[in-house]
């Protein structure tokens, strides 16, 4: 379980372009469930995701992961936690051009010093799982939107994280591919993974796979949600 306690995030503090993305947010995210942060763009959902996923630190407040306060962990340990426990799927996919899909998927595991053969086998397994095994050796920029989406998901899963975080995953997908995405989320749920999604797409937050929807607006959680 992930707990967020009175988290505030202020960018460019003290300068003329000071901007408060999160103004005191508290919530709990249950394990093994699919939680969606719903809200318009600029509401602070992306910032919230990055703090939950240990990619950024809050300006004030605490983040408690499975009972352990990780807010003030040194950089190295925070990165280690993030690497092992979280997998990110970005809105823009953010694949590296010019290298193969397979290599893109293996990248997050490179610094961990795993033997190449085992890593490659696991990556190819993920390609199988996501039904894009035949695209593994293609250069990333030659893939279709849906294929890129799946490669991005595979990359998020390469280090077998407990939690998958996705930021506006259906923003560049049509309805069919959006539904396919939610099916994949369903599969992850059956495997016991926690999924956290930020989205303003009804196809996502109205899906029956979603366990809980939290509304975010202007850096605050809207009342009426537990």
């Amino acid at each position, binding site marked *: 379980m992930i707990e967020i306690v009175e988290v505030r995030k202020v960018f460019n503090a003290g300068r003329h372009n000071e901007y408060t993305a999160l103004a005191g947010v508290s919530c709990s995210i249950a394990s093994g469930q699919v939680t969606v942060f719903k809200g318009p763009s600029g509401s602070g959902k992306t910032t919230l995701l*990055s703090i939950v996923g240990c990619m950024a630190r809050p300006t004030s407040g605490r983040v408690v992961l499975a009972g352990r306060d990780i807010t003030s962990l040194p950089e190295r340990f925070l990165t280690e936690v993030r690497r092992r426990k979280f997998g990110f799927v970005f809105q*823009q996919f953010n694949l*590296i051009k010019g290298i193969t899909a397979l290599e893109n998927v293996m990248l997050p595991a*490179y610094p961990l010093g795993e033997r190449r053969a085992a890593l490659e086998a696991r990556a190819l397994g993920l390609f199988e799982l996501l039904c894009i095994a035949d695209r593994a050796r293609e250069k990333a920029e030659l893939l279709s939107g849906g294929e890129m989406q799946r490669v991005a998901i595979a990359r998020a899963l390469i280090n077998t994280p407990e939690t998958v975080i996705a930021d506006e995953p259906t923003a560049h997908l049509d309805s069919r591919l959006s539904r396919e995405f939610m099916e994949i989320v369903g599969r992850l749920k059956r495997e016991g993974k926690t999924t956290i999604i930020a989205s303003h797409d009804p196809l996502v937050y109205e899906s029956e796979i979603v366990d809980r929807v939290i509304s975010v607006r202007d850096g605050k959680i809207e009342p009426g949600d537990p």
Partner: protein
Amino acid sequence: MSRLEKQRNILDYTLSSLLRRKGKNAALTLVFTLVVFMVASAVLFAQAVRREASLVLKDTPEIIVQRTVAGRQGLVPEAYVERIAAIRGVSAVRGRLWGYYFDDAFGGANYTLMVPDAFPYEPGTIVVGGEVARNSRTRVDNLLPFKAHDGTVRGYRIGEILPTESALVSADLILMTEPDFRSLFGIPAAEVTDIVLSVRNPQEIATIAHKIAALLPDTRPIVRDEILRTYDAVFAWRAGLLLAILAGSVAAFIIFAWDRATGLSAEERREIGILKAVGWETGDVLTMKFWEGAVVSLSSFLAGIALAYAHVFFASATLFEPVIKGWSVLYPDFRLTPSVNAPEMAALFFITVVPYTVATIVPSWRAATIDPDAVMRF
């Protein structure tokens, strides 16, 4: 062994990344290799020639006495030989005859003519160096014509050709008897070109040289030490052409490093952001940048010095021929003994590989410290 695996993984990514711009990186590697090849060839060649000189010229005459007449080298009277012989400590004195002959028949070659102390053939016979024979397209027992001082043509039979292995000292030599030399050049019996002498005690060389200068004020003695030191200066870095090669190479490297150092493109910055976002630490990114520089520079450096060694010691430095030959018509066969100067090779490593690698890492420092969530905010 996970540290090693980690390095190999990062290296894999670096190589994939470099292969994305095959053409540019191949060209870079090629030029880098070429520059290292040129400089290393020059260094190896120079070192080998200097070493050959020091080993081979160690028995050069101990003292040579020349005479200056009106600011130019003039002939030495035979009488000087006896006067020098009278100096205490001198063990052997001899007047030498030698000079130059310009042969315009075959392209305009300059030969060095000498009368050695003991010449085993009778007058009318000469011994020639390898290049003389080659240039005149002649062999043993053939006649070689010379224009004498009085306008007549003399023919001398070639009795022997000096071995090729001695080319570096003998390529342009022509040896003949004293009577032949004197009649060819019209040098009277009482004169010699210069005087060579040896001393009983090598410690006394400088003292005796001083005495000769005092005794015969129109002469200049040259001692063995000075002769040997002349060849320390040959192909030295101070020499104009090698300095030009070095300057050109340094300029090339500055250009390489500048290309690397003028910051990263937006694309490169984005990619570093992605790597940070998927879990790479700052150190991992910098390791990748290190490999980026090291792959190109190390490959090129090793290839360059390997090719240089092969060029100088297996191909007799053929690429230097037009440069060294210059106006000469003759060109000795440089079968040099390999001699590797480790400090100079190490210096070459430190002025090529290290700056290039550093120039690849340093500009990336800033970008490598980017926050992992930055890519989400793009």
